């Protein structure tokens, strides 16, 4: 009898990337139970706290505030960051004009510009969105710029030999060639946006999840702090996961058709 290999394909119990999490949780649970420290509750207690928190309307409200600031701030950064990066990559004069400042903003901690936002917008949502933009905008510009700049010169020459105008050259050669780099920039920018969200909320705007974390910390409620931490981690994971939709759409056969053949 012939035996097909695929019939013996074992069912994988866990995708590889879940193992470190599983080990981490196990260690956490054990440490929480064995050490008996009030500051480190076992994982199961933290998880219970998470569900309790999620159920409360106060937490839901703050979560919505945080997430909407995150989406708004990152959205603005993504659109204008890619646009500015592309302009700098395309036009030498713009790059020469702005390159130094891009480096300055990339190198300096984003929180030092917050007092300026504070002066204009006060404590509130606008400041919060501004902080997120400060965190994510410049890195998206930098990645887009380097993607656009590293376009293969021989492809540019080829396109010119067929009489490509600037618009077609950009849409058909430069942008697709920079696209993988732009996607990396968006991912790094999204991760920084989440950081900016929490930092801004904890230290400046005192709203959203960050504010909850801070008050829970001040009140010395370890289970709640850890529970909020799990919520923040989930927000970050879901946000970055959603971003993966972009490459999946643009690299699917249908997305490629849209990118390549129309117009």
């Amino acid at each position, binding site marked *: 009898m012939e035996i097909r290999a695929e019939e013996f394909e074992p069912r994988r119990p866990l995708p590889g990337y879940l193992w470190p999490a599983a080990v981490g949780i196990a260690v956490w649970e054990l440490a929480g139970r064995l050490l008996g420290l009030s500051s480190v509750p076992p994982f199961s207690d933290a998880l219970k706290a998470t569900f309790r928190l999620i159920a409360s309307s106060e937490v839901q409200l703050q979560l919505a505030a945080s997430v909407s600031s995150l989406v708004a701030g990152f959205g603005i950064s993504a659109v204008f960051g890619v646009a500015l990066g592309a302009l700098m990559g395309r036009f030498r004069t713009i790059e020469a004009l702005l390159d130094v400042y891009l480096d300055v903003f990339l190198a300096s901690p984003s929180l030092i510009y917050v007092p300026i936002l504070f002066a204009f917008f006060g404590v509130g949502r606008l400041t919060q969105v501004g902080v997120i933009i400060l965190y994510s905008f410049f890195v998206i510009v930098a990645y887009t710029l380097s993607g656009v700049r590293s376009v293969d010169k021989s492809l540019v020459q080829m396109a010119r*030999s067929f009489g490509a105008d600037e618009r077609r050259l950009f849409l*058909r050669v430069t942008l697709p060639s920079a696209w993988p780099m732009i996607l990396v920039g968006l991912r790094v920018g999204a991760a920084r946006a989440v950081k900016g969200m929490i930092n801004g909320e904890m230290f400046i705007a005192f709203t959203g999840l960050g504010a909850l974390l801070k008050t829970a910390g001040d009140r010395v409620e370890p289970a709640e702090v850890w529970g909020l931490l799990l919520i923040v981690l989930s927000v970050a994971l879901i946000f970055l996961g959603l971003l993966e939709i972009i490459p999946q759409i643009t690299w699917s056969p249908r997305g490629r058709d849209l990118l390549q053949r129309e117009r």
Partner: protein
Amino acid sequence: MIEIQGCVKTYRSKHGDGIAALGGVDLTIKDHEFVCLLGPSGCGKTTLLKIVAGLTSADAGQVLIGGRPVEGPGPDRSVVFQNFALLPWADVFSNVQFGLEMRGVHPSLRRERALHWIQSVGLSGFESRFPRELSGGMQQRVGLARALAVDPQILLMDEPFTSVDSQTRRLLQDDLVALHQKERKTVMFVTHSMDEAVRLADRVVLLTERPGRVLERLDVPLPRPRPAEIRKCPEFSELTEYLWSRIQTMQPDLRSRMSERPEEELDK
């Protein structure tokens, strides 16, 4: 008709010292003529082709096509590149359509023409393959189909078969001969292979080492159509031997220049 009149080109390196690539080239290529530019590496063959293509400009002199000076790329010419220059993210079908797309040809006509040329270069069935999935020879067939799809009068070929292995190279040469027999395009073909030049050309133009000038214009009196067996004919080897002897006279000087950077690297 392509008239190249007194073309001079010097590349400036970053330190300001110039490298003279072309030292005044005069050459006329008739309509439907197949001309091979032959010469030692770094003699400015590629530079001359790029000037004719309108991708770079001469420091002095000019190129006339049909009596009008070349000021940039035009619909009468297309280029086949040494490194193929295919879009790596696009499949064969899209790559062949690229030139037509840049010229604003209507999508339905574009598809029709692309399919026709994909078939003509023997790539039917490979329409949805990506360049990385193809051999070098097949990639250059895509490059050739892309160049021919825009229906140019002049085909500018920059060492198109240098990046493929020697067996594939012969096959590509045979196909190009057959294609030329049918299409009768004016072809300017850069090569450093004497065998290739004699196999393909109506006329071989020998350039000197840098700064390149025309050393000799040699008619290839072999009859057309030209089958692959033409290599066995005594005239074929006579011609290649003659070209080799002419190139050898340039050798001593050539060796001393080997350490310098070839002009292609500076041409950015």
